[in-house]
């Protein structure tokens, strides 16, 4: 029971838990939903979307400071 989360060319396999959301993954990686867009198996999703077993989560930073 796991899913993968990738951010800036780094991919991590994470343990899957029932009820886990995109927001939890963002918090875990200390990323802000204000600057990052999440894709779940290729589809853009909102932060309260629940993660499923085997998901591929891709986090894309769209806002850079400066």
């Amino acid at each position, binding site marked *: 029971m796991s899913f993968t989360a990738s951010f800036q060319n780094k991919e991590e396999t994470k343990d899957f838990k029932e009820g886990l959301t995109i927001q939890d993954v963002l918090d875990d990686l200390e990323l802000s939903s204000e600057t990052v867009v999440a894709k779940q198996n290729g589809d853009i999703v*909102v932060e309260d979307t629940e993660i499923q077993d085997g998901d591929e989560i891709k986090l894309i930073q*769209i806002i850079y*400071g400066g």
Partner: protein
Amino acid sequence: MTVCTKCGNPKVVITRKQSGQSLCSDCFIKSIEKKVQKTIRREKLITKGDKVMVALSGGKDSVVTLDILNSYRERHVIDLCAVTIDEGIKGYRDEGVRIAVDHAKRLGIEHEVVSFKDCFNIDLDEIMKTDNHRGSCTYCGVFRRWIINRQARKFGATKIATGHNLDDESEAILMNYLEGNINNLSSLGAITTSKSPKFTPKIKPLREIPEKEVGLYALCKGLEIHLAGCPYAQESFRMEVANILKDLSKNHPTIMYSTLKGYDKIKPLVKENYALEYHDGDCEICGEPSSNKLCRACTFLKELGKEVNI
């Protein structure tokens, strides 16, 4: 489960804090296009027959500006062209230039890549290696403006479109306000004109679109964008102001929009009392409008021991 407020599609890409509205990709794209069209109409940003030059870096803001203005070109309302500036930042700018070139080719529009090196005989990487430089952003701002103004005349453009979004614009308003810089404050807004015939009016079609939504629009439309931060970005007062606004927005999601709208209301009064600086002379070296003997670009170049290529 959340569904699209407009069409019921369960694939929601955004829930807007300010309105509680949830949208699917198609409805979100439509909502952005409608909002930008509304700004363009209300502020009279373009008139039929305009030739609009987009300052195209390859980043999300300029790519989305180009994409939305292209719908006006397709309807034969305007003609479109683009300029990309290569500041000469190794490991950063090349990718943006490639993406800009690809977009211009795909749309089949007139496009030119102009480099600092070609214009000024020095690039940003070289400037940053000199002693006592003024900081990257100072050169970039002045040199880019110089190139954009000149290229607009070369293209015969009647408007220059930049990708400023709601975050950029509200930051600039608050920053100039906090610094008491009322002269700069009077030159913000959706359209900037000048009495000098050498300056092409500048328009900001995305100024009411939050930065995150500009990025989301690019992703939803599958537009390739350059995702990277400038390696020379540094701590600045502007960044501090940006952070304050972003923090405030968490509990007050309409704060940037109200900053903008409040400014728009006082702008006519500010303009009346603090007229835009009018450059009645030309720079002795390059001929660009300047109220001093030398324009800012030529002044900086002189310090660096360089001169413009005309």
